[in-house]
């Protein structure tokens, strides 16, 4: 990896400097200690800079991991022809059936093809009025209507956390609080949540509800929230608005590290009509492996073309797809393609870092110039005793590198505090579309290495000019 080799080069450089140095390092270190206030102030600037960089990179890292962790090897995502995102896709049931029976699709233990029919919707949720301060007024939720949650879970390789279950075949259960009115049955919709969104929704709870909650960290099995409305229920005073639909959590997915972490899964036949969607948006099928996925994807994409040309695709695998025209993608590619946002952020981060670094460089330069002008006599003596110009250069360069390194290491340490923080963001892909995700900031090795590299680099550049000027001092002038 580029970062590690650069760090290796940097370490080698520092090591080389240490080896060449004849002026004892103790001289530099002790001077740093004597002028401790200046040293601390300069190092602190490095600390801040490095910490900021680490946090920003951790954010982007979290985004990247999320998108790369969502695609399952071997999965093929089928969308409607011309659709580049699940939101804008409408699939034909006949098409789905045909694709599912293709031999490329592997079968589950019970003999059924591992094919998941899904309806993906983005819905608007107004946050309850009694939510604590600072909560958003409304948010966009990712809702996935699923026919058979067990099968879908298998296709996406997602399991539930212990203590939960997938929703029942009916996808709903009676509301014990309904009482009275029998005309409107008020069933509650059973829903399975990704862990991330469970935590996010959990924070909507008022302090009173939190106090008596099963799990204060997040919504858990048995918790109820509202979303959408029940058109069959009207307020007693008539002419009012329909009552909000209740949803009951029956399971939490162990989904950290994928975009599914921010999704809500419920019975497709129940929720799709509520939100006006009467078709499936996506079909996800599992093939043997990455290679098989690619082959199958090509087959599906070409089948439509050949069908349009009037020919039957005479594939030995048998069974030509007739009029089906779909947009099939290798699932991993689909998710990994959602890096457009990541790239935009990375560019912004680099720009910001460059600017703050420039500020830091000037700070270090100031310190080193001042240090040198304080110690002109020392430089003169050293030159007199026979230390060469290069030795003087190396000595002061090392001094600035030490400040930078100490500050930078502290900054990396400070930055790791952000590891594990959650943040919401939108990931978008090159072909449009986007998902609102809850991501975790991840500080890992390469990021820390970048932090250290930045400090070293700044120490080098900031200290170079002053060290060069020290090098050029004439011993005679220095001692006057």
């Amino acid at each position, binding site marked *: 990896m580029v970062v590690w080799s650069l760090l290796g080069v940097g370490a080698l450089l520092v090591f080389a400097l240490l080896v060449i140095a*004849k*002026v*004892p390092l*103790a*001289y530099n270190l*002790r*001077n740093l200690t*004597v002028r401790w206030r200046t040293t601390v102030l300069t190092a602190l600037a490095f600390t801040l800079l490095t910490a900021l960089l680490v946090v920003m990179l951790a954010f982007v890292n979290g985004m990247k991991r999320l998108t790369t962790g969502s695609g399952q090897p071997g999965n093929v995502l089928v969308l409607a022809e011309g659709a580049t995102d699940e939101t804008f896709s409408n699939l034909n049931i006949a098409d789905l059936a045909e694709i599912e029976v293709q031999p490329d699709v592997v079968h589950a233990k019970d003999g059924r093809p591992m094919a998941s029919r899904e309806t993906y919707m983005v819905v608007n949720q107004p946050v309850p009025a009694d939510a604590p301060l600072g909560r958003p007024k409304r948010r966009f939720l990712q809702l996935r209507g699923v026919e058979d949650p067990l099968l879908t879970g298998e296709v996406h390789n997602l399991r539930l956390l212990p203590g939960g279950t997938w929703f029942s075949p009916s996808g709903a259960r009676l509301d014990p609080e309904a009482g009275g009115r029998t005309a409107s049955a008020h069933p509650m919709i059973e829903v399975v949540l990704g862990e991330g969104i469970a935590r996010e929704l959990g924070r909507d709870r008022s302090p009173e509800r939190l106090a008596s909650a099963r799990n204060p960290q997040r919504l858990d099995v048995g918790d109820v929230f509202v979303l959408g409305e029940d058109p069959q229920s009207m307020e007693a005073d008539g002419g009012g608005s329909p009552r909000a639909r209740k949803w009951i959590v029956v399971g939490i997915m162990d989904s950290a590290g994928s975009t599914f972490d921010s999704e809500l899964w419920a019975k497709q036949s129940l929720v799709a009509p509520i939100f006006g969607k009467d078709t499936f948006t996506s079909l996800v099928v599992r093939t043997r492996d990455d290679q098989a996925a690619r082959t199958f994807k090509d087959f599906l994409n070409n089948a439509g073309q050949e069908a349009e040309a009037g020919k039957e695709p005479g594939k030995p695998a048998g069974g030509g797809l007739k009029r089906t025209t779909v947009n099939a993608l290798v699932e991993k590619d689909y998710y990994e393609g959602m890096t457009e946002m990541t790239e935009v952020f990375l560019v912004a981060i680099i720009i910001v870092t460059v600017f703050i670094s420039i500020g830091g460089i000037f700070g270090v330069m100031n310190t080193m110039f001042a240090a040198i002008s304080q110690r002109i*006599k*020392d430089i*003169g*003596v*050293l*030159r*007199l*005793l*026979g*230390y*060469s*110009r290069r030795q003087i250069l190396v000595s002061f360069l090392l001094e600035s590198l030490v400040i930078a390194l100490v500050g930078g290491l502290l900054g990396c340490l400070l930055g790791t505090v952000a590891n594990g923080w959650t943040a919401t963001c939108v990931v978008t892909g090159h072909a449009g579309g986007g998902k609102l995700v809850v991501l975790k900031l991840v500080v890992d090795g390469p990021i820390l290495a970048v932090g250290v590299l930045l400090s070293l680099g700044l120490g080098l550049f900031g200290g170079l000019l002053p060290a060069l000027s020290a090098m050029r001092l004439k*011993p*005679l002038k220095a*001692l006057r």
Partner: protein
Amino acid sequence: MTSANGSIVRVLGVSKSFRRGSERVDVLNDLTLDVPEGEFLGLMGPSGSGKTTLLNLIAGLDTPDQGEVWVGDQLVSQMSEGQLARWRTRHVGFVFQFYHLLPVLSAYENVELPLLLLPLSAAQRKQQVMTALELVGLADRIRHRPGQLSGGQQQRVGIARAIVTDPTLVVADEPTGDLDARSAEEILDLLVELRKTLKKTILLVTHDPRAAVRAQRLLHLEKGKLVEQA
């Protein structure tokens, strides 16, 4: 080490001038000097007479516009900067009016500084440093920093540093200028002592009549030329 006639320093027809603004000032004018080995030579003269310049030329800190400077059998005036640096470490010891010790290093470390440039083992360095410090009578203060030493003690450290590499020549520029009467006497006695025991050649630039008295030979520099004084 010495040349044919026993001189350790030979300055031959040396001239040096400086620019001061737009003027050219001739500081040394066709100057010639011979210093035999082991001599304690004193240089006196009014300020601006060029005695420091002469010292710099002999010590390899500067090069003459004309003429030659020989120290031992080396033509110092023709050496490159790099060569001079290496040469100085081994062959010249400096003693300054303001001591010029590195404030953050201890007495031991200050004396050790020139040795770090030589291919010696740590044990060898230690031996030479301790010897030098014992000679100047500061073996009990090796860990002290200059800030913790009196003026006279600091100058002793300076002298120890000047002799630790066993140089051909010791050059002292107003070594007593910043000391009180008693310390000054002690330092001068020390220099005389060192010359006797180590057979060092000492070049002393000074205003101080007490220093002048201890020199074997006293030269005056006037208008760029040397005048001997009995």
